[in-house]
């Protein structure tokens, strides 16, 4: 990378990432819009669905993602500082911990899925939630499994990219750009979860 092209190259990388995130925002927005409309149509069923989710697991998962986002942001902060002062680049400890927190999120999420499936809350032939009084409860759980599953897939992709970047051997300047873009993606996944947690877990008083 030539010296005079650095700012331009950085702008191009970031703009490309923001265009990608913009498309992701529109993709998830359509889903959120569907959630809002269905909640408006069937408020009692969606409130019952919210009460059937495991609040502590959702709260712990939110904590795990927020903590991982903090570690990624702090890593990038230290990296920028090192770049400005000429000090040594920060080690990968924060990234490893952030990755482990991400894994913790996925483990807890799939454990929660297991609990719901055992409770008969998986829509389709496995559905046997006898206590349900609302016909639209399966719709809530269909959306719950679909949207949180989609989010988990995004997180899994983030974890794979994190591993790839940690093992990558290219110039530090190039790595700066890649890490900045990775940080944007990771925080975006965090923001999506913040809204999903609110919608699915905090939808009704307990």
């Amino acid at each position, binding site marked *: 990378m030539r010296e005079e092209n650095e700012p331009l190259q950085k*702008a191009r990388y*970031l*703009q490309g990432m*923001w*265009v990608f*995130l*913009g498309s992701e*925002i*529109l993709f998830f*927005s*359509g889903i959120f*819009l569907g959630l*809002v*409309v269905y*909640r*408006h149509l069937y408020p009692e069923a969606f409130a019952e669905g919210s009460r059937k989710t495991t*609040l502590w697991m959702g*709260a712990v998962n*939110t*904590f795990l993602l*927020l*903590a991982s*986002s*903090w570690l*990624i*942001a*702090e890593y990038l*902060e230290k990296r920028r500082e090192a770049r400005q002062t000429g000090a040594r680049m920060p080690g990968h400890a924060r990234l490893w911990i952030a990755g482990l927190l991400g894994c913790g999120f996925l483990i807890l999420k799939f454990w929660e899925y297991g609990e719901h499936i055992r409770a008969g809350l998986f829509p389709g032939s496995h559905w046997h939630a006898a206590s349900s009084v609302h016909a639209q409860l399966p719709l809530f759980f269909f959306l719950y499994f679909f949207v949180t599953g989609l989010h988990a897939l995004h997180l899994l992709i983030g974890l794979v990219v994190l591993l790839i970047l940690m093992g990558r051997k290219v110039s530090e300047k190039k790595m700066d750009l890649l890490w900045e873009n990775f*940080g*944007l993606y990771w*925080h*975006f996944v*965090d*923001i999506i979860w*913040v*809204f999903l*947690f*609110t*919608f699915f877990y*905090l*939808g*009704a*008083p*307990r």
Partner: protein
Amino acid sequence: MTARRVFYILICLLGMALLTLKVPLFPEWLLLGLGIATLKSILIGCYYMDLKRMSSSMRWLALGSLFWLSLLFILTAADYLTRPYFFL
């Protein structure tokens, strides 16, 4: 503001969101929760995604997607909320 301080604020907001479930002061809990979630996402966007330090063109690019998002919600809400059976 450092990343650590933003994290502490985010955790406080998470605690507040959980507390709203126990305090029946508000008729629509979800709206309150979504307000807190929006505040959290603004903090993450401004400080973790660095929107505060970015060039104005990049900021416009990011805000542009929010503009299209608002159009999507406003126009759809205008349709659904003006359908007569919604009020039956």
